[in-house]
């Protein structure tokens, strides 16, 4: 595959420290986008939806036919792609890019419909509730609904042709633990279900998830203590539990423009009593509050660097910082993140 056309404007400039820290640890965007299915995982609030949407934009820009799936179904993924809430049927949001939202109840009916030719009827709803209860106890069925739907989309072919309908499926997984059980579901299911017609389906889904060339995960983290700890733990459990590959860890909201001595000298000089009023007059406001901005920036930069080091020590895959985009969520932010990712992933 060729690299995305055009040279997107870089909205963010990597500092020397961060640049050298990244060196030798990059993953090529092209490699990542060559997968068939990518699960974007991470604790709530780590920017999963934005990262999924940004990767989807990049893939679509590279000419791939992309399906973005929201497992949490809170509508965040559609919003990040500038679209109103989608439904269970893929909705086209732009050329080459569709979004779909999974909800357990609907998934259950569709699942029965796809695999067992059970007609979709409203009467199934109370059954779905019971099913929900069993499903919490039997690892598999409910998670299988999610994984099964994803696998079904992966297998989907163009009408009348043999080529796949989607080139890449990006999954905005549910928060931490849930994503884990989705991914581990086929494996767990295989040990549990020896009979039933479900077994053969589970077998090929399991093979898809464990094939690192076709399926991988992208782990999201934040430069904060608990999200970092949880990202490391999640990585371990994902590998052990489901055997899925983890391609890259994205450290979201990274602040990596350092405060230099020149910045500090400048702020100190402006706020000196002998200059303060003259400077205030020239600038149209007091420069004193700006010191707080520089201090906070320096603090956030140190925090980012500390957690970046920590993640790199503990994770075997590349860890890539993604700049803190201050805009509100939505397509504008997603585009800025996509551009940043594009310049970060070689």
């Amino acid at each position: 595959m060729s690299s995305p056309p055009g040279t997107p404007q870089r909205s963010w400039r990597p500092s020397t420290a961060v640049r050298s820290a990244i060196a030798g640890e990059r993953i090529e965007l092209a490699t990542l986008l060559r997968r068939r299915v990518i699960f974007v995982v991470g604790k709530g609030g780590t920017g999963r939806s934005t990262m999924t949407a940004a990767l989807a934009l990049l893939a679509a820009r590279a000419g791939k036919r992309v399906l973005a799936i929201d497992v949490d179904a809170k509508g965040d993924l559609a919003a990040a792609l500038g679209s109103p809430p989608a439904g269970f049927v893929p909705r086209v949001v732009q050329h080459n890019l569709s979004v779909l939202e999974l909800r357990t109840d609907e998934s259950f009916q569709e699942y029965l419909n796809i695999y067992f030719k059970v007609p979709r009827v409203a009467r199934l709803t109370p059954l779905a509730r019971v099913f929900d209860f069993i499903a919490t106890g039997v690892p598999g069925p409910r998670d299988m609904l999610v994984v099964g739907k994803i696998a079904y989309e992966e297998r989907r072919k163009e009408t009348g042709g043999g080529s796949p309908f989607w080139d890449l499926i990006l999954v905005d997984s549910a928060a931490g633990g849930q994503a884990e059980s989705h991914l581990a579901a086929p494996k767990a299911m295989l040990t549990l279900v020896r009979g039933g017609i479900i077994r053969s389906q589970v077998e090929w889904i399991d093979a898809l998830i464990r094939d690192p060339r076709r399926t991988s995960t992208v782990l999201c983290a934040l430069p904060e203590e608990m999200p970092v700890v949880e990202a490391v733990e999640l990585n371990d459990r994902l590998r052990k539990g489901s055997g899925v590959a983890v391609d890259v860890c994205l450290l979201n909201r990274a602040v990596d423009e350092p405060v230099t001595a020149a910045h500090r000298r400048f702020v100190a000089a402006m706020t000196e009593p002998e200059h303060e009023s003259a400077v205030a007059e020239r600038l149209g406001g007091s420069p004193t509050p700006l010191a707080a901005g520089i201090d906070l920036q320096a603090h956030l930069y140190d925090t980012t660097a500390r957690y970046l080091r920590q993640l790199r020590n503990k994770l075997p895959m590349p860890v890539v910082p993604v700049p803190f985009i201050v805009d509100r969520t939505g397509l504008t932010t997603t585009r800025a993140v996509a551009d940043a990712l594009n310049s970060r992933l070689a």
Partner: protein
Amino acid sequence: MSGSDAVHVPERRRSARSEPAGLGRRLGSLDVVICCGSGGVGKTTISAALGMAIAAAEDKRVLVLTVDPARRLATALGIKGIGAEPVRIPKARLRKAGITISGDLEAAMLDMKQAWDRMIERYSPDRATTKRILRNPLYQRITDSFVGSHEYAAIEALYELHDAGEYDCIVVDTPPSRNALDFLEAPSRLTDYVGSRLLSMLSGGPSRFGFRAMNFAAAPFLKLADRLLGAEVLAEVSDFVRQLQLLYDGIQGRARSVYRLLRSPQTGFVVVTTLEQGPFSEAEFFCAKLREFKMPLRAMVVNRVLPDVFRDSGGVAASTTLVEDPKVAAALSDELHLRVSTDTARFVGRTFLNRNTLAQREARQLAKLGRIGDVPIVRMPLFSEEVSELEGLVRIAKAL
């Protein structure tokens, strides 16, 4: 003012005069304080600091019950680890860290598995049933992953501790769920499920309500489930459900007592949130639900708020000039007798403006809090919790 202080030191709520008493005193008269909020807002830290503030304000025996595998909390409290057995935090150590407590402060971590096992024991009609349930392979998985199972275990443990009466005040840190509401709904949800008519269809025998199991409605479902899961799994499920139904009366009775405790005037809820969109909406929703359920909200802690300095209008004007005026760097170089590059001027301006954008957004969220009701709102500045030493926790406790 030194800038780094502005970042690190918690500031007191500005309207401190209208709320003379700190949260320690305000909540100190309660038997139970429940900290709720979305995951990742710093609930565990706030719970520990609240416990500390209460023990400082009142001569009481205070227990902080956390559900977090809280290595960091243990470190912050200056003890080696927190387990199911309560650990006392030495007064001398707290004094050294800057807080004198008149009461006693202990911390314990909830053991989820133990809480469930004990519950099954308590509600089983006989030992044979207990054994059968504990042995069922589905049991562990249900307790691990059933929606609200952690919440239920936390409530059970709280109820038991409260009932035992060993502590004057118990501060509970609720499990990090996607839905803070899960905590309130856990008891009724469990009761609903265990008593559900639909579930009894599965149990393969006449249910406690007298429905025939293999009745008209159930048969197609069982057939279907059989195809889906295979017969063995279904047999396990059916056995488990049948056992679980024997516990129904106990669980239902306990749910009633638990709700009585949660609604008691001796109980108080403290909602913890940040000003980020997700957690904040969740907190608003949760407060509304508390009102609906007639459960007493006593305070709101807004964590990680940007300091007010980032909304200073002079600062905004100055920053804007630095970013937008191409001649400003040269002019300031002359004024300050310092070579200032355009890049430096822009960087300093942009840094402030970025934070200003966030601070404005936060202020809009904070303004919405007026709707939540007449409870004290405590703002904790960004990074006040980043210090994983006891001193950091003490500072938060004092700010509360």
